[in-house]
Structures are given as C-alpha cells and as structure tokens.
C-alpha cells in the first residue's frame, strides 16, 4: 500500500487538529477514552502474566513485538509503546495513519503505523508476540478468515487479545439503543447487532482459527462511578478474551 515520502506542513496541521480530536477525552471518541483504562488493565495484566513481566518495573514490555489492529488514533498503540513494546499499528482507514503518526511524534513515541490489514500483513509473513484485536471482529465480513489471519501473525506461544460485543437483548438495548440512539456516544449505524458474537461463538471461531482461548472477562459500565471495570461474571454486553497460539 501507499507510503508517504514527503511531509507537507499544511497537511500536518490538519492531521494535528484531527489528532487533537481523537485524543480529546470529551470529544468524538469519548466512549473509547472511557473504556480505555479498563481495556488497558486487561491487556497489561494478560501480557504481564503470559510473558512473565513485572508492571511495576520501567519498560516492562521491552523486547515484545506487538501489533494493534484497527489502531485508529493510537489509543492503545501509544500506551503499549510507552511500556516498551515494539509497536506496529495497522488501520484499514488510510486517514487514521498520519493522524496517529502526528500524535505519536508529539508524545515523543516511536510507533510504526501502517495503512494495511491483518490479512495483508499475514500474507507478507509478519510475526508478533502479541496481537491486539480490540473491537474489530464485529465489523469484519468473515470473522473466521480474519481470526485465522491473526493466528498467522502470531509466533508460536504468542498472545491474541480480542474484545467484542455479545449478542443478546441486553446488548441490543445497551450498545445500539443506549450508546447510539439515547446517549449518542456512537454515530448511528456504528454497529450491526446481527454481527455481534456470543463468547461461546467467539471461542469456537478462535479454536477453529488455531488458537487456544485461555481467559474471558466482561467489561461492565457502572453509571454511578461513570467508569468501566472488568467482571469475571458479567459478559452480557462488552467482553474481552485472551488466546494463545499452540
């Protein structure tokens, strides 16, 4: 795919404005910012457990090669780079790439952002210790083919973290009616409820793709504290899973 070779200051100013929008906790991407600490708690603790890293030490993920699929403005890629991982951020939307690059530069982080897809990277033979696959699988047309590409992207013993939305009446009310229509957290049509996947279905697909599911947790929104937290029991709407490549 295309790669930029020259830098146009006027273009960069536009990307800086878009980056500011991506990173405004009260802006367009507020729901992602609200969910982010909870997602990061899960991701960091799973990586730490799997690769025997101590999160209280500086740069705990040093030496790990990590791919963030659907990286957007870099909300997950930047924290991973800050923790020492060697990060590739991939997004199928070309407009996100320079925006993420500009923000990483502002933050003093080095991240390899690419306009590409999991399938294209797998075909090119790229390999990672960790693949982050967060809130993507509910948007793809062929989940099994996609998850198989993710499996190819992992080294043996590698870890995939995958989050998505459950399919039931509650998730329809919360994610479609609540988030898109009532709270207007997300643009209408962001999600197609029929593409939501139950945890059991996802684990079946993950196994078929050649990975072993090892953990699953719910991510639950608490309207009193106005924040998200992890739950071992409530996977009824948002949930996240960990799987290992055999």
């Amino acid at each position: 795919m295309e790669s930029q070779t020259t830098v146009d200051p006027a273009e960069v100013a536009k990307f800086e404005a878009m980056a500011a929008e991506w990173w405004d906790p009260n802006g367009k991407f507020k729901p992602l910012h609200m969910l982010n600490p909870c997602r990061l708690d899960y991701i960091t603790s799973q990586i730490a457990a799997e690769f025997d890293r101590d999160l209280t030490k500086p740069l705990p993920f040093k030496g790990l090669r990590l791919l963030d699929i659907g990286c957007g403005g870099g909300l997950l890629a930047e924290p991973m780079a800050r923790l020492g991982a060697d990060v590739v951020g991939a997004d199928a939307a070309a407009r996100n790439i320079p925006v993420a690059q500009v923000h990483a530069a502002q933050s003093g982080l080095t991240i390899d952002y690419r306009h590409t897809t999991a399938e294209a990277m797998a075909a090119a033979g790229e390999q990672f210790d960790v693949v982050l696959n967060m809130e993507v699988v509910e948007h793809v047309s062929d989940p099994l083919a996609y998850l198989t590409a993710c499996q190819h992207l992992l080294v043996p013993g590698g870890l995939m973290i995958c989050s998505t939305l459950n399919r039931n009446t509650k998730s329809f009310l919360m994610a479609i009616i609540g988030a898109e229509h009532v709270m207007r957290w997300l643009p209408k049509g962001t999600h197609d409820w029929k593409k939501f996947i139950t945890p059991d279905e996802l684990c079946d697909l993950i196994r078929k793709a050649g990975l072993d599911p090892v953990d699953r947790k719910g991510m639950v929104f608490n309207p009193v504290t106005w924040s998200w937290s992890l739950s071992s029991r409530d996977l009824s709407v948002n949930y996240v899973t960990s799987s290992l490549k055999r």
Partner: protein
Amino acid sequence: MDNSDLCPIVACMTYDSDILIAGGGLNGPALALALAQSGLSVTVVDARPAPARAEAGFDGRSYALAIASKRLLSAIGLWPAVAGQVQPILQIKASDGLAGRGAAPFFLHFDSAEIEEGPMGFMLEDRHLYRAFLQAMDAAPGLTLLSGETVVAQEVTPSGATVTLASGKTLTARLLVGCDGRGSGTALRAGITRVGWGYGQTALVTAIRHEKDHHGIAQQFFMPAGPLAILPLPGGHHSSIVWSETDSAAAAIQALSDAEYLEVLRPRFGDFLGEITLAGARFTYPLSLSLAQSFIAPRVALVGDAAHGVHPIAGQGLNLGLRDVAALAEVLVDASRRGEDIGAADVLERYQRWRRFDSTTLALGMDSVNRLFSNDNPALRLARDFGMGAINALPRLRRGFMRQAAGLSGDLPRLLSGQPL
C-alpha cells in the same frame, strides 16, 4: 514515514522529568517521594534554600498528623526517621469554653481506646518532619530537588509543560503539579480562579511549657472569638497552642511583650496544666478559606492548599493535603503502569473526581463549625452544648467522628491504608 521525520514540524517533546512539582513544603516532598519510589522521575522546585530548612531550631511549629497521614508517611518510608520525635494523641477533649470560666458541663471526649487503630493522631514538629523529608529526597533515585528556585513562567503544549525558573533555566515535564500553597502561582498561571473569604480572625501560634503532664491529651476550647487548641508535644511538659482572635485583637496581642502575652493567654488556657511559660517563637496566620475553582488544568494538577486552603480548625490542613498526595500518586502511578500519558486530561480528571468532593465538603464543613462555635449567642451555646453532650452519649456517632478526624473514612487511596503503590 517515521514519527521522528515529523519533529521539525510537530512540537515533539522530550522531558527533563515525568513530573515537575512547584513547591517544596510538605505535600510536594511527600508526592515526590511516592512517585519517585514508583519509578517516575520527579523534579521539586523549592523557593527556600535547603540549608536554612535543615538547620531549623525549636520554634514550636508542629502538626497533628491523622492516622491516615501516619500510614502514608510509613508507606513512603519516612516514619522510622520521625517515630522517635512524635507525641501520640491518646485522647481529644473538645469543649465549649467561656474565657475565664473554664469548660461547659457538656463536652466532647474522644478516647483512642475506643477505636482499634491506636492513638488518634501524632504531634510532630515541623522541623523534624522537614528534615526527614530532605534526607529522604536526597537519598531517592529519580528525584531532583532544586532549592532556592522559583517558577516564574509556565507554558503547556498538547503533550507537556515547560516552566521557566527565576534563574532563567527552563524545565520540561509531562505534568506540572502545584504544591505552592493558597497563593498558588501554578494555579494563577494556569488561569484557575479561586473563591474564598476571610474570617476576620487570625490564628496565634506558639509553644508553651507547662508544670503538669499533658498525658497525651489534646484539648480544644471553642471560645467566642475562635477556637483554642492545646496539642501535646513530646516529653509531657510542652504543648503547641493554636489560638484564634479577631484580626484586631490578634494584632494587639502579637505586639505585646512575652510576659503580657502570657497574661492574656492564661485565663483562656485555665490552670489544668499548672503554671505555664512561653517555650517557642510566636507566629500569626490570618484565617481564610480559599478554594480553587478547579483542581486541574491542561497538564496541571493542584495539591493541598493550592487546591483548598482551609481554616486550620481540627488540624486538617496538612492531613487534607496528604489525602490529595495519596490520591494523585495513586492515579498517576496506575496510569503510568497502564502506559497512559500521565498528564492527559482524562487521567487528571480521575484525580479531581476523587478529591474535589471530599476536600470541598470538609473545607465548607470546617467553615460552618467555626461559624457555629465562634458565636456568643446564648441559645446557640445551649444548643451546641447539648449537641456535644448528645454526641458523647452515642458511642457509634462518636466513633464515626473519630474515624473521620483520623482520616479513615471514605474511599481511601492505597497509601492512606499504609499499602505500597
């Protein structure tokens, strides 16, 4: 395109430290130690020259540390350095006094034997606490103390803050924390406005020597002009006193000779500790409430008096500041371990959400307590004497008050529970 190619166009920041703290009083060093011990790099800018602080003699200035504050000092490794210099507060007696007449029949009595946490607090002299902080900061890796320096300008970018010092030196950090008191320059430069009012009262502070042993009992007399607190210092025969008068009376009293000063104090104090003599320097502090409209701004957080300067009733000023320290340290260390940008707006918002309600409630609560007690209306006196008697008669209510005063209620940060970050 690699990120670094963008640096000639985008403001790419490098940081001299993760966190820059303006103010080297007590909250600043406490926060700096907690953060540095968790692996963050910290620079503290302190206006005072270090040797002057380290060599301070006895001046009577001291703090009533709540149990939660003691736990924080233990968690950051400071307690062993001061443990030999503290006076445990074993009981607190609060009563409604009329000058010259002693205490009213109903008074509040809190005894540490009633709560399992042990003493209700600890008296510690300012100079001992300062010295312990200086030694700990000196020994802490990742912590730089710049003494005799002040911040004169600050500027924020999307990813950090740059400050200019009086010496002309500039420093960058991801986050600037203002621990610079109620006249906080950090808050002012960040455009944070304040609300507040004076009380028309001034606190007179000194230390006295008394004939009889205080037995670790702290006393608080609520007088028409304002409260008189008698706080036990180590050795049994010294106490720190904090005493409020109207501004004009306080100015007149402060101008008196030591002998005349004692003559004014004696009838207020009573004779329950026998003969009293002055043992420390005399200080005055005008009392006022000063609340910052926000505890945060882009790349800026406020701690302690910079966020909420309170009436020093019940000795809650430092304790409240250390609660901010514990909450901010926890928010920042947790964010850092998640890989988050520690100066990002949503991270700072977590700190503000956690602390603002608690500190503003306490500040306004202390304000109304003072207004209630600094009043000579007979009906009000009767009502509050009755109220105090009622609190005494209800052990559960009394224990609730004690736990609140000890800083043991509410959603406690880990440091205030004595746990590491």
